């Protein structure tokens, strides 16, 4: 049960019980007082009336009755003279001068004055009747439950609203928007929730700094490692121009190694970026278009070696994630396939949908991987006895797939070659929290 429900129900229960008990006790007290007054003191009322009448005559008695009506709203006082006229002019013809709750009339007389009969009884007139109806235990109970229910709901809402808004802010950050801040309305609060919001802001600021300094460091590393390579490349070009025709094979070798080192530096940096689980963008990405771009680039590369890349495209398929990372995963697997593929044979690329997963299948006709080594090919710098290392490309791809909640698998093909399958969750089949998060409808 959520926080709102818990606070609401517990406050409601406590308030309903308290309210019910209080009302029940007051009701019992009022009843008891009325009964006591009626049962025990008609004589005392009569005596007081007698005193008033004796002292101030009829006006005195009138004032006394008015006073008693005020003092005892739960009781009615009737003073009827011998001609059956009521002192306050009320009709008494239908009045039972005896009955439940009524006492035998007391006589109130003054020496040499008129005589009255005093009737004291529990109120039965309409307005008091309504009040009594209200005091019925069942009605009271319903009222107590309704009022306390509404009150507790308001209270619970008041208490949980900042937490709900805090949660919305935290989810924005969790979805990768590291620049997001808690809403100022929350962060300004002086209570514990406000403190929590400010702490979260401090924490994300710290994270932001860490990520930024890591990015800066990676850029610096790239610069420091590639600058000597850039000088080396130019130096060999100069040397080559100075001695045309000499040591061609060696120069070409140097250029190739420089390129390899350059590629390796790029891979190490890319791997380091995905290894730390960077804050990821969660955009809707059209997978087939990403694959198409990678195929296009791979073709340009493959053509030089007399290799082919075929692409069986599917309908549009949308996944959610970081386009650059997804592209690098596809690109790394595809480059690997082109590199190991047999000249003349095609590298086959296909996209499609399998259940709730979007699938990219990249298959080559290369040497394949010994079955015992298959589980290990996604490890960094893994190498088999038969082939040179594949570097970090497959490890980067594996990491990217994991970050996106997908998976990667490799198997040997019948007839030779390796087949790598990349499975991404489709945007439609993603987890509910991500789908609800920004509320945007996916195409």
């Amino acid at each position, binding site marked *: 049960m959520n926080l709102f429900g818990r606070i609401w129900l517990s406050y409601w229960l406590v308030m309903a019980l308290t309210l019910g008990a209080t009302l029940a006790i007051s009701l019992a007290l009022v009843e008891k007082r009325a009964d006591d007054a009626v049962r025990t003191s008609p004589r005392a009322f009569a005596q007081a009336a007698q005193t008033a009448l004796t002292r101030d005559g009829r006006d005195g008695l009138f004032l006394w009755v008015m006073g008693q009506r005020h003092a005892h709203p739960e009781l009615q006082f009737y003073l009827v003279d011998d001609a059956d006229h009521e002192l306050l002019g009320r009709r008494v013809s239908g009045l039972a001068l005896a009955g439940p709750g009524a006492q035998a009339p007391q006589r109130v007389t003054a020496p040499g004055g008129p005589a009255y009969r005093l009737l004291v009884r529990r109120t039965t007139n309409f307005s008091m009747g309504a009040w009594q109806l209200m005091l019925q235990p069942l009605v009271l109970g319903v009222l107590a439950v309704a009022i306390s229910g509404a009150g507790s709901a308001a209270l619970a809402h008041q208490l949980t609203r900042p937490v709900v808004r805090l949660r919305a802010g935290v989810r924005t950050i969790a979805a990768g928007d590291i620049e997001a801040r808690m809403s100022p309305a929350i962060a300004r609060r002086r209570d514990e929730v406000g403190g929590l919001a400010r702490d979260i802001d401090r924490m994300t600021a710290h994270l932001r700094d860490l990520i930024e300094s890591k990015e800066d460091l990676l850029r610096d590393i*790239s610069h420091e490692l*590639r600058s000597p390579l850039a000088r080396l490349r*130019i130096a060999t070009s*100069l040397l080559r*121009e100075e001695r045309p025709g000499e040591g061609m094979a060696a120069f070409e070798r140097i250029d190739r190694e*420089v390129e390899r080192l350059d590629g390796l530096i790029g891979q190490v940096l890319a791997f380091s970026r995905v290894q730390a689980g960077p804050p990821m963008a969660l955009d809707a990405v059209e997978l087939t278009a990403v694959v*198409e771009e990678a195929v296009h680039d791979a073709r*340009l590369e493959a053509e030089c070696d007399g290799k082919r890349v075929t692409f069986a495209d599917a309908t549009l398929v949308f996944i959610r994630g970081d386009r650059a990372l997804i592209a690098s995963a596809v690109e790394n697997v595809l480059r690997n396939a082109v590199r190991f593929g047999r000249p003349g044979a095609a590298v086959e690329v296909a996209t499609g949908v399998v259940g709730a997963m979007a699938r990219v299948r990249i298959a080559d006709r290369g040497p394949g991987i010994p079955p015992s080594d298959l589980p290990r090919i996604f490890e960094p710098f893994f190498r088999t006895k038969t082939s040179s290392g594949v570097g970090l490309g497959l490890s980067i791809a594996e990491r990217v797939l994991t970050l996106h909640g997908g998976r990667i698998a490799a198997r040997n093909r019948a007839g030779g070659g390796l087949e790598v399958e990349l499975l991404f969750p489709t945007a439609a089949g993603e987890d509910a929290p991500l789908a609800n998060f920004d509320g945007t409808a996916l195409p």
Partner: protein
Amino acid sequence: MRALDAADLAIPVLGRAARGATPGRVWTMEQTARILIVDDDEEFARMLGEFLGRQGFLVSRAGSGRAALTILETDTPDLIVLDIMMPEVDGLETLQKVRLERDLPIIMVTARGQARDRILGLELGADDYLAKPFDPHELAARIRAVLRRLHLAFRPRDPVCLGPLTLTPAAMSATLGGEDVRLTPAEFMVLEALAAQPGVMQTRESLTERALGRPLTAYDRSLDTHVSNLRRKLGLSSVAGVEIRAIRGGGYSLTLGEARR
């Protein structure tokens, strides 16, 4: 130093005052092109200068962004090779400052190896981009491509009119529905190439050759960056109906006059 945000950098490009004005000196095929290399890696710049010198260019060097700006106050090279990562005034800032004043062709180079640098550089109006380490022959080819393209651009040609879109090659300026669209030289060339065959799909290969004057290579996203900038700039106009469409299979086409609403 903290990297500049795209938002900070976008304004000066759009507000470039000197658009349309011809540079002080226009390189012609017959002249020796003068190249300014701006790089804080002295040894690299020296060797690159030597290489380009042998390739027939006249080379001068600046060791920092600030030094480059000082040189540019009195001298106008035909093309600048600009390193991004330099202390104090870095390459992107230098590019921005140079672009505020004139349409000098600029090729950015960097060893930082990040796609964001390329996108920012091209958005700020760099004509091309190379990642270090590069084959110096490739740089020489790109320098020639940029210069040849500019040379062709300054040959007198009639303005092209396509619906609400008007391109004036002599001034490298474009208007859409009478409103000026501020384009970098490279963006202008891409738009002109697209406008040459409206409604027809042109491959990325042929567009790269026509507009950037060089063949398309693998993992080369320069053309796509230019196109995405163009789309944004054309989309800013209140006149609808001019669209650059991406075609499956790797190409683009310019479509006109199809009411979207």
